[in-house]
């Protein structure tokens, strides 16, 4: 961690710039546009997520065949595979209620701040409160589980 390649953070920054510019250009950074999609008034929004997924999917499929490891980290090229459990459904449903109520998701909220939407700080504040609440709760229950296991 300490000896990162000097280009590591600059590259992350450039990737973030392109990512944020795309969220602005697509209008996904505007909650109204997301809400208009969710209420079927403008069905264009899936082109953003699936367009992006296709581009990343090509890279995820090709790179492991071309190179063994990423040049700046030495990390192997792997797909993003996470284990499935009940949390994916519960968390997905809670996220869905929040997204449907507010019209904003985390990446789009950061980009929204960039396009001038100061009002989105309400959503960002809420996201930190929510992330803290679940982290506090899960840290506690994790410690309790460890204590219970240790007592056996």
């Amino acid at each position: 961690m300490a000896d990162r390649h000097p280009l590591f953070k600059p590259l992350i920054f450039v990737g973030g710039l392109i990512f944020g510019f795309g969220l602005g250009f697509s209008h996904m950074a505007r909650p109204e546009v997301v809400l208009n999609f969710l209420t079927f008034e403008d069905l264009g929004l899936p082109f953003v997520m699936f367009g992006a997924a296709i581009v990343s999917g090509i890279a995820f499929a090709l790179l492991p065949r071309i190179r063994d490891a990423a040049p700046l980290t030495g990390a192997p090229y792997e797909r993003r595979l996470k284990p499935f459990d009940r949390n994916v459904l519960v968390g997905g449903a809670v996220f869905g209620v929040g997204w449907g109520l507010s019209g904003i998701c985390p990446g789009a909220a950061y980009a929204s701040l960039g396009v001038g939407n100061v009002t989105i700080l309400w959503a960002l504040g809420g996201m930190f409160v929510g992330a803290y609440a679940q982290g506090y709760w899960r840290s506690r229950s994790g410690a309790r589980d460890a204590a219970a296991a240790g007592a056996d």
Partner: protein
Amino acid sequence: MVADPVLLQAVAELFPSGVSRYAVGGLLVGLGTVVIYVGTGIPAGASTFLESTLSYVSGQSRFRRYVGSRDWRLVFTAGIILGGLAFAATFQSGLVTSPLYEPGTTGTLYEVAGVTLWATDVQPWRLFFGGILVGIGTRIGKGCTSGHGVCGVGSASKTSLVGVATFLAVAIGTAQVVAALGVSP
């Protein structure tokens, strides 16, 4: 091939803003993800930033696991914010135009130092309470629209496909109910 005018009109009604701004924006979001992945091997998602940044101020064990990645996640988010600003300074300000870009009509435009900025009309209580649920749900559900939706779907991950189907279906239901209750914007 003969274009059916009735069919064309039906399609136009489904996509009143066209599809090019969405598709081009999506390709750029994908490109940003790929730039990071090619250099680092990291399939980056946006919502982990919430917990990794909390590790600066909280000692909870749940956040400590992100201490190693919190610096670059801060850089990633700063890039996203400034990328949005770059869009505002160019296309949103009318400095650059393209037939692929269709400006939106919602919200409120205002100007600061020659840059056209935009603010939402969606009510703060919706943003705040929705934001709380987004913060809880994305972290418990192992990802958000970028982590599951872009990187996970791009990886053909079954977990992510189920995650996306879940939050998309619930979000559609929620937005329809909220709209039916007369809450606008």
